[in-house]
């Protein structure tokens, strides 16, 4: 279990995620992501606006079937604690105090889910809802450190999985991605020609903090993991010209 130190690998993974054409592609990517992070499992599960459920991930099929068979959806504190919310959740903070929840946890551990988990809930449009989860067997301290160190990237990856899943919604008319405003284009252009943040902020007569927010917003719209990646994408797509 560790840090995905080679950031460009994560960028590459995100590029491939963007060109994914179906659930099978997501499955391949989620397995790779699991191996890159060195955690026991990663699962991405979503309920679309019509109430249909989909998922991909690395749990054993036996556990997935058992989960459905036993109706664990109604007991699982992760579902109870994440549904309709938008903050990431360390499983240890959830309420496992009921007898049913404890029995469920014991069963999950027996099936190799691990004793640690971290779930990122996402609320999409029209009632769409998703959970991006990592689980692992290890110490509390190790898990706190891992999730703390990787939280930002995990949140971004979770949201990119979700944007992809939204494209798979049946009958969905592809909506144009939120385009960059002139101000964001100016900010990205200045970074592309080598200005540092202070110089770019000065040129645009805005504070550095405001600039960081514009860049962050542009990064999100460009589907990038970081600023360098975002600048590269803006250039390759012709969003900015230098």
């Amino acid at each position, binding site marked *: 279990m560790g840090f995905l130190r080679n950031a460009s690998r994560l960028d590459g993974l995100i590029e491939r995620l963007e060109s994914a054409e179906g659930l099978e592609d997501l499955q391949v990517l989620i397995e790779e992501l699991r191996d890159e992070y060195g955690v026991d499992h990663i699962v991405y599960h979503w309920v679309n606006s019509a109430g249909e459920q989909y998922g991909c991930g690395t749990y054993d099929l036996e556990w997935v079937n058992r989960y459905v068979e036993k109706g664990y959806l109604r007991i699982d504190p992760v579902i109870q604690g994440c549904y*309709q919310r938008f903050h990431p959740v360390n499983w240890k903070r959830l309420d496992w105090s009921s007898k049913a929840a404890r029995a469920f946890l014991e069963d999950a551990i027996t099936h190799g889910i691990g*004793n640690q988990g971290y779930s990122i809930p996402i609320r999409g449009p029209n009632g769409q809802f998703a959970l991006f989860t990592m689980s692992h067997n290890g110490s509390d301290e190790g898990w706190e450190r891992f999730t703390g160190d990787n939280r930002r990237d995990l949140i971004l990856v979770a949201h990119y999985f979700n944007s992809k899943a939204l494209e798979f919604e049946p009958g969905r008319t592809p909506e144009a991605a939120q385009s960059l405003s002139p101000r964001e284009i100016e900010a990205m252009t200045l970074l592309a020609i080598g200005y540092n943040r202070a110089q770019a902020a000065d040129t645009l007569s805005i504070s550095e903090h405001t600039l960081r927010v514009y860049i962050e*917003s542009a990064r999100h719209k460009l589907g990038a993991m970081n600023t360098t990646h975002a600048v590269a994408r803006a250039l390759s797509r012709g969003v900015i010209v230098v």
Partner: protein
Amino acid sequence: MIRYIYGNDLHKFPKLARTMFLDRADQFKTRLGWDVTVDARGFERDEYDAENPLYVIWENKDGTHGGSMRLLPTVGRTMVNDHFIHLTDGVHIESPLIWECTRFCLARGAAPGVAAALMLAGGEVMQEFGVMHYVGVFDARMVRIYKRIGSSPDILGQEGEGRAMIAVGLWEFSAEAQAKVARTAGITPEMSKRWFARSFGEIVDEAGLIAA
């Protein structure tokens, strides 16, 4: 004490929720004269309250509302993007790492530490949930209050004059500002963590749970 409550859990705190929406009417309609909707019960509620936001609320000893603010992720619908884009240089601010903070409200006669306690709680949320920035909408009076408690935002844009002034601003986390806000609030970091855990759960060891 501070409570963190999602919209769909407000019914579990009826007195707190009722007095919050009444105090919001008092602040935004009666005192500031904003063009807000107050319903037959006297509650000030808008369309974003229907988006299941996360409320951060100061609860007085008698269970009533002392102050509050409302948080929403900017990847969903937000007030700034829907109504104030002319104050953000036309930038549609959107990222899972940026949340919106609106309806910062203080009850009439709120104790001096309440505003700082709310800002301190906002810092806890940033640290625990990986939020890098807040974008917020606030009124003229708040500019002074934020300054006093040591957590002034960067102002992106503003409109209106005097009491009717409305601004859009940005906050980011700094350990230094957080420490200053904690001192102004008169709340120890341990107390703040305890309140956070009370709403979001303690870290509990599962071995103990299974044995229980």
